[in-house]
């Protein structure tokens, strides 16, 4: 059988373990020119092994080809539109990368003396200042390593403040449209999660909120605009309801891309919030990190922020560790500095008016897609949407085609799928966030693709249900993968000698 009958982007790639053959190496070492050391004598016999079982043995070119082929399989914002709702997959400008690679920044070390780190500290201070201005909050910590980490930090700040008042309280209210990290955060911080339903317009039901808030309520965790892309226009009343009972308002800032330069959480009653620099401020999403999830607070929460805090003394930046009420450190050193540099580069390259334009374009793009797609897909919530729009698969479901099928078919059209089946309050959700990155031309290509799929659902639903058809691997069995997960590669059992 001939294995190679397809062009390389569609060939499958074996694991390094599977292309291993005994004795191959990717290095050549010079002859030893120092006296040999007996490792067993130096390290102890139990720490030395003669052989690593199953270790792949491959040549340099095999390693290079393996990883280069794998990298060519990636879909990336640099290849095309990435309409994942709620994730804000915007383009990461090359300028950010250029600045982050400047030698003095890239090679700075956290153990460098403060006197030699003034530039880096100035960058951290400038970013804190910019984020204070954007959010209307009083103080910012850049320590948390990502959004969910920021959430946990924020709710721990709430707990610390309430404890200092004598009672940490018991419960945190979370709307049913929230990101799943919100209830997880509240639980991690030791609170009981109390869900609140959404009203028919997709917004938090204020009457339900008023009936649930009591002296045992620590905070409301609200995303604004919420995961339907709808602005919580009752946020001022909600904040009043919470504050009247001594509870706080936590805002999940994941959707700040709809607000920057237009509205400030600090002006609509928010006590504490986090930002996702990889969403709103164009730092790379990365492979789970490194990230930065700044937490922004009003003055009453400032004493509890993670230690150390940046301070300026006699014209010099330095770190203040004398913070008796602080919740302590939440991250090694000062957070992920390289990410902060990129975010500040983005903010400064845009300036205030530029950031505001980005917001306006993000909202315009989402509304353009809404108008183009509304004739073809069910729109369960009619409220005006901001930076993202959530359709449902209700019409296509009548032909047996679900949101996941449409998303898989979108891959055949060269796009990354939208967010599937979230938020949970929309049955069969199709959540689309184009961001300000996309031009009208690209938005039209995307809308054309979805409209073409809607027509396929009418004429040939099986084509959509069995998608994708153009990929190396066709549809995977998600159920089998979840029920019987294979978590690691294992060597094939040794072949029995023929007898």
């Amino acid at each position, binding site marked *: 059988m001939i294995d190679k009958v397809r062009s390389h982007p569609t060939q499958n790639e074996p694991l390094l373990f599977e292309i291993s053959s005994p004795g191959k190496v990717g290095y050549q070492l010079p002859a030893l020119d120092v006296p040999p050391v007996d490792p067993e004598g130096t390290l102890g016999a139990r720490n030395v092994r003669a052989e690593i079982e199953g270790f792949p043995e491959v040549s340099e070119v095999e390693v290079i080809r393996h990883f280069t082929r794998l990298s060519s399989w990636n879909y990336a914002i640099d290849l095309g539109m990435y309409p994942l709702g709620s994730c804000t997959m915007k383009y990461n400008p090359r300028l950010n990368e250029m600045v982050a690679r400047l030698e003095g920044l890239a090679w700075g070390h956290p153990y460098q003396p403060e006197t030699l780190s003034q530039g880096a500290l100035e960058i951290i201070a400038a970013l804190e200042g910019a984020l204070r201005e954007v959010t209307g909050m009083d103080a910012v910590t850049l320590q948390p390593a990502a959004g969910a980490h920021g959430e946990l930090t924020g709710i721990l700040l709430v707990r610390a403040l309430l404890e200092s008042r004598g009672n940490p309280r018991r419960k945190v209210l979370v709307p049913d449209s929230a990101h799943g990290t919100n209830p997880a955060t509240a639980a991690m911080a030791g609170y009981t999660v109390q869900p609140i339903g959404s009203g028919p317009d997709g917004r938090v039901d204020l009457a339900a909120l008023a009936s649930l808030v009591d002296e045992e309520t620590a905070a409301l965790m609200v995303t604004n605009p919420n995961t339907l892309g709808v602005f919580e226009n009752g946020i001022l009343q909600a904040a009043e309801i919470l504050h009247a009972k001594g509870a706080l308002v936590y805002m999940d800032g994941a959707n700040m891309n709809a607000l920057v330069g237009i509205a400030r959480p600090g002006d609509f009653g928010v006590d504490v919030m986090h930002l996702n620099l990889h969403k709103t401020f164009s730092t790379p999403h990365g492979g789970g990190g490194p990230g930065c999830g700044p937490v922004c607070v009003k003055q009453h929460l400032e004493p509890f922020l993670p230690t150390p805090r940046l301070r300026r003394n006699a014209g010099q930046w330095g770190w203040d560790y004398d913070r008796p009420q602080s919740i302590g450190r939440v991250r090694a050193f000062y957070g992920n500095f390289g990410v902060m540099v990129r975010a500040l580069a983005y903010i400064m390259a845009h300036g205030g008016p530029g950031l505001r334009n980005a917001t306006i374009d993000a909202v315009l793009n989402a509304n353009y897609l809404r108008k183009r797609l509304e004739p073809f897909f069910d729109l369960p919530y009619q409220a005006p949407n901001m930076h993202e729009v959530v359709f449902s698969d209700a019409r296509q479901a009548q032909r047996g085609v679900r949101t996941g099928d449409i998303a898989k078919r979108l891959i055949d059209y060269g796009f990354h799928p939208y967010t599937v*089946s979230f938020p*949970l309050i929309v049955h069969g959700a199709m959540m689309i966030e184009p961001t300000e990155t996309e031009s009208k031309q690209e938005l039209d290509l995307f809308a054309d693709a979805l409209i073409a799929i809607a027509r396929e659902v009418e004429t040939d639903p099986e084509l959509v249900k069995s998608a994708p058809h153009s990929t190396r691997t066709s549809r995977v069995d*998600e*159920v089998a993968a*979840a*029920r019987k997960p294979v978590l690691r590669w294992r060597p094939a059992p040794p072949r029995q000698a023929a007898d």
Partner: protein
Amino acid sequence: MSNYPDTYRYTKEHEWVSVEGDLGTVGLTFHAQQELGDIVYVDLPKLGLQVEQGKALGSVESVKAVSDIYAPVSGEVAEINDALTSAPEKLNEDPHGAAWLVKLKLANPGEVQNLMTAAEYQTYIGAES
């Protein structure tokens, strides 16, 4: 298709309970498993746990989402259906029978009266979808 036994009582969160003596057998409804899709994991409570009506009893995970299971009645967990741990797909195959979740020793048998009958539940899910 689905058959909702008249002897069971049903919750708005889509659990059923069948009472025999002081023991209530609890499960997920046909409608619930259909909405969840293929169930891949079931997290059941420990024996002896005291649960309150309407409070979380465990959770089920499908390829789409993780959902809490709420106790339809208050009581003590007297028995759990261990077979579901290794074969969660049973919840899709026989939700009203072999795939019961737990048996509760009822703390307050009168609570069953707060729950829906089979006819009421079917009207409820009809209205919901």
